């Protein structure tokens, strides 16, 4: 039995199709989840994809956080189910308080779209275990509100506990504190990432296939934790 990984579509999600493709290429069964459903259909893990849920009205992710599907998702995440939030998904996870901090408007005010070099700085989370420590990867980055902020104490805590999972290399593209591109929760099952690994899973369409590592990592973690059979 292969792992079943859900991908939630909110009104305004953009990258749900690419996330489904990435999940499938990694070898899992992708399950489409709908924002208005109050069930996760028994999936083993969930990806919250990028986009502009609810038009980014109010604050990015602020309205999506109260979508019916988020109720079982927040509960499952607290119980250890792997959840990856990419870009808008990261914003939703912060708004849900599953991850600390917040994402704010890029310090230079421009929407940015580029291939971004990252350094992986955590290899124990559910979504990064297939990488090597300090491995450098290149995946697309595209955001208008990607500046990660948190108070100094929270930033110290994230760094001290090894919960910064990726940092921007060469250039800080959005003013994120301490070059943080992604973080995880204390248990390591919930990961938020501003750049887009789901756009870097095939040589034909991506700058690299570096992004696949996030999706193969979660498959490995599900097998290791006995959630699914290898």
């Amino acid at each position, binding site marked *: 039995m292969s792992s079943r990984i859900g991908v939630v579509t909110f009104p305004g999600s953009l990258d749900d199709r690419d996330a489904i493709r990435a999940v499938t290429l990694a070898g899992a069964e992708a399950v489409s989840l709908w924002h208005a459903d109050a069930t996760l259909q028994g999936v083993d893990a969930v990806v919250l994809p990028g986009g502009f849920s609810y038009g980014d009205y*109010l*604050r990015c992710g*602020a*309205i999506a956080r*109260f979508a019916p599907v988020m109720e079982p998702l927040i509960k499952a995440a607290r119980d250890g189910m792997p959840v990856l939030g990419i870009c808008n998904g990261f914003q939703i996870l*912060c*708004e849900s308080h599953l991850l*600390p*901090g*917040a994402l*704010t*408007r*890029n*310090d*230079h*005010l421009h929407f940015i779209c580029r291939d971004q070099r990252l350094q992986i700085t955590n290899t124990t989370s559910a979504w990064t275990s297939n990488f090597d420590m300090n491995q450098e990867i290149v995946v697309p980055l595209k955001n208008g509100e990607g*500046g990660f*902020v*948190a*108070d100094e104490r929270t930033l110290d805590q994230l760094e001290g506990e090894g919960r910064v999972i990726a940092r921007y290399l060469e250039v800080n593209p959005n*003013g994120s504190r301490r070059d943080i591109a992604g973080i995880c929760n204390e248990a390591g099952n919930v990961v938020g990432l501003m750049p887009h690994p789901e756009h870097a899973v095939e040589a034909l369409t991506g700058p690299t296939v570096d992004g696949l590592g996030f999706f193969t990592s979660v498959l490995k973690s599900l097998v290791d934790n006995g959630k699914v059979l290898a």
Partner: protein
Amino acid sequence: MAIVVVDVALKPEILDPQGRAVQGALGRLGLHGVTDVRQGKQFVLTIDGEVTADKLDEIKKIAETLLSNPVIEDFTVEVKA
């Protein structure tokens, strides 16, 4: 009928690049001497009936959970009429 106004502003320590861009425009339009601009949001809630203490508490709770993000924003709630 009553009006309740919720003002939301970024915390002072959070960078406000939009406010800074507005500040730049002010100078170009000839308004000088503005040392800082902070941009916020205002929600005007029209309430059916009277705003009781309980109702005000409910509104404050919503201001804290939905209308603002306490990680980066402060808010004030004011009953207008």
